């Protein structure tokens, strides 16, 4: 395949570095939000539950791209601060997918058999010990498939940051296109291939984690 020429690859790979970094940071923020919100939604305090429910429903009820624009353009004006494009993107992606992830966390914790919790109470474990030693390790194995899907969605969501001028792989592709329009098909073919490779790598990582989480369990 002559048209899929390799000289397009170096500039695209510099952009891919930004995409990977952004994906990595966003996944970490999303995981933190998902666990905090997912566990917090099971708390007894109605105020805490209300705040967390509002966060989850607002971020699930509006568009990721609208959130990205709001955080990048509107929030700095409202609070009179300056956010870099990277910070805004990590915030938007992390908060958005954290809201979806919190549902995965919550439903997995609720799916841990009641007898396990009763047994840990009978063993006089503190609530913290119960969560850390009994509930979360079992729930974690159930969360992984859901997290895997969200991870791929998040990766696809990173392509939108080009619209707030963050120089990710999509941005590099569009820039290359403006130098030589005749190579448009090759550039977009490369973009699709690169995204697919990263998505596949993420799937493999989740599969590895799944195997580790269920090791030694029937």
């Amino acid at each position, binding site marked *: 395949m002559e048209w899929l020429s390799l000289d397009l690859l170096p500039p695209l790979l510099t952009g891919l570095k930004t995409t990977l970094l952004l994906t990595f940071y966003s996944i970490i923020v999303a995981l933190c939000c998902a666990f905090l919100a997912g566990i917090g939604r099971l708390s007894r305090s109605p105020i805490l539950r209300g705040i967390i429910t509002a966060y989850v429903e607002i971020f699930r009820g509006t568009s990721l791209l*609208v959130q990205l624009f709001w955080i990048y353009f509107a929030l700095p004006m409202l609070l009179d601060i300056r956010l870099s494009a990277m910070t805004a993107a990590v915030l938007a992606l992390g908060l958005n997918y954290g809201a979806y992830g919190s549902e995965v966390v919550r439903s997995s914790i609720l799916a841990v058999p009641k007898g396990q919790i009763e047994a840990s109470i009978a063993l006089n474990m503190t609530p913290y010990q119960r969560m850390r030693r009994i509930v979360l390790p079992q729930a974690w194995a159930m969360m992984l498939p859901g997290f895997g899907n969200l991870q*791929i969605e998040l990766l696809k969501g990173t392509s939108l940051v080009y619209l707030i001028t963050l120089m990710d792989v999509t941005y590099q592709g569009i820039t290359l296109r403006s130098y030589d329009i005749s190579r448009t098909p090759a550039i977009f073919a490369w973009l699709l291939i690169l995204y697919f490779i990263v998505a596949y790598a993420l799937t493999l990582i989740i599969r590895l984690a799944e195997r580790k989480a269920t090791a030694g369990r029937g």
Partner: protein
Amino acid sequence: MWDWQYAKSILPKLLEVIPTTLAATFAGFIIACLLGLPIALAKRSSSKWISFPVIAVTEFIRSTPLLIQLFVLVFVLPQSLGIILSPFLAGILGMGIHYSTYLSEVYRSGIDAIPKGQWEASIALNFSKTRTWTRIVLPQSIPPTIPVMGNYLIVMFKETPTLSAITVVELLMTAKVVGSASFKYVEAFTLVGVIFFLLSYPSALLVRALERRMKRRERRGLAR
């Protein structure tokens, strides 16, 4: 920093484009629904020559961003095949193709949930293949998937701002234009967020209620 007067003045401009956003959502959804079914059937095909390529292509579409796929429709198609689509047509086609890969999974799970006895019974009754599908399998497998389909309709509604990247004039695009005219982005983007929430949240509640009802009915069916 929030100007109520200004917010009120730009609201009509935003409300005006809601029909476009909704039209794009529904048109994309219909394409996805129509395309999803043959994909689901091809994935279940007993011939590896049919099922394997279809699975490979749908996995590829699912793992790559909609934005890039839209760019392919708008920039690559005219250049390599000479097909020029209007932004709106490219937008609904792109969304339709992207989400048909998701809906095919929904159909497939619905079809796979049909008890084996139903297939055997239709063979015993000497039903033709078409009759088995149209009279026995599809009528039973589609209704339980309706709540999930509803969820995807909402997901597609929230995906419409992506179409602004290929210059479809929907809510976000309008907010950008309005905001850039006055450099007051706060009101414009906040209103768009509120509009999205007001439209999608009640729909989400409706879908959840539907889901609960379906589950109850399923349980009753099992008890019988």
